[in-house]
């Protein structure tokens, strides 16, 4: 082999060796890269899993928030309904009290008129008027005065808490009582609690009327201790007394008159037919 040839062979061996070295280095680099990538994959896989949980939780949160919102609305609706029912209940309670009162008033009025027309006996009628004024209206001192058409004077025929003799006769048109009897208008003292008893100037004066014809008056001087003022039912009772007590008194008087005449006539007949 010539030196020339020998030289060429060495350089080619070198060249080959260089190439082989580079190949080895490259392989090593590849292996390192491979390892780095594996690690990265593992890392990314882990991250990915974490991301899934976060996404799932966010979704869950969104659903829960929507549900809470829904429940809040339902709660508002229920509260609104409760308030509505409470208002309705209050209305019913008020209405119940009103109906109870109305029932009570009607019972008073019905029984008062029923009793007033239950008899034709003059004394009994006066007794019933007295009972109504004591028990239903709640007066302690009062009187019933009737007009004597012949004399034009009003005189007491029944009294409670006052002696009959204490009550003077009153001329029609004179003083408070006489004026009420001629005008036919009800009279109520402005302040029943501050009223001071005066037999000529009562706390209440109610004319007893048949249509516009006054036949007498009811005068009240004192109410029961527990009776401070008049209730709406009292005014209705006064109105009822004004009319029904008057007709009951009038009917009883006519009846008594006709009974008397009948017995007088019967007496004559008996005398004549004896």
């Amino acid at each position: 082999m010539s030196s020339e040839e020998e030289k060429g062979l060495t350089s080619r061996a070198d060249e080959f060796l260089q190439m082989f070295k580079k190949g080895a280095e490259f392989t090593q680099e590849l292996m390192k890269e491979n390892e780095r990538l594996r690690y990265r994959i593992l890392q990314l896989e882990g991250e990915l899993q974490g991301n899934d949980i976060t996404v799932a939780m966010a979704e869950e949160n969104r659903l829960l928030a929507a549900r809470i919102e829904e429940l809040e609305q339902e709660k508002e609706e229920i509260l609104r309904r409760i308030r509505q029912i409470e208002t309705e209940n209050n209305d019913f309670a008020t209405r119940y009290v009103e109906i109870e009162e109305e029932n009570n008033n009607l019972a008073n009025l019905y029984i008062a008129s029923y009793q007033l027309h239950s008899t034709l006996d003059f004394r009994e009628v006066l007794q019933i008027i007295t009972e109504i004024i004591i028990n239903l209206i709640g007066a302690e001192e009062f009187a019933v005065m009737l007009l004597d058409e012949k004399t034009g004077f009003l005189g007491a025929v029944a009294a409670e808490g006052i002696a009959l003799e204490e009550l003077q006769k009153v001329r029609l048109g004179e003083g408070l009582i006489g004026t009420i009897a001629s005008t036919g208008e009800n009279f109520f003292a402005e302040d029943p609690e501050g009223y001071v008893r005066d037999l000529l100037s009562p706390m209440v004066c109610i004319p007893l009327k048949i249509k516009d014809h006054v036949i007498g008056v009811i005068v009240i001087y004192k109410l029961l201790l527990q009776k401070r003022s008049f209730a709406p039912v009292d005014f209705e009772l006064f109105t009822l007394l004004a009319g029904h007590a008057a007709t009951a008194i009038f009917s009883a008087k006519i009846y008594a008159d006709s009974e008397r005449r009948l017995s007088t006539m019967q007496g004559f007949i008996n005398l004549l037919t004896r």
Partner: protein
Amino acid sequence: MADKRILIVEDSPTMRQLIAYSLKRLSGVSIVEAGDGVEALKKMATETVDLILTDINMPIMDGLKLVSLVRGDARLRNIPIAIITTEGAAEDRERALALGANDYIVKPIQSGRVLAVARELLGIS
């Protein structure tokens, strides 16, 4: 259950009718009436009574006398009694309760109050 019997002792027929009317809303209740204390005792001699509602001011025998006689009678002493009266003073109320009345109602009455007292003393709803 047998009817509960309520005795109304009151001299005013108007009041007797009004009290009876107030009690009409109680079912299974019958009413016995007396015009004074003596008549009430006579009624109770022959009839069983579950509740007495009595006025105070009555002729012959008043309501307070009736309360003390009922409370002193071995057979009648446990019957509940409510007073219904025009007497509105505190001392009248105290005297009646001291004698053994269970409740005290002043006139003019409210039918709802009479009804409530009767229900309570009869132990019915």
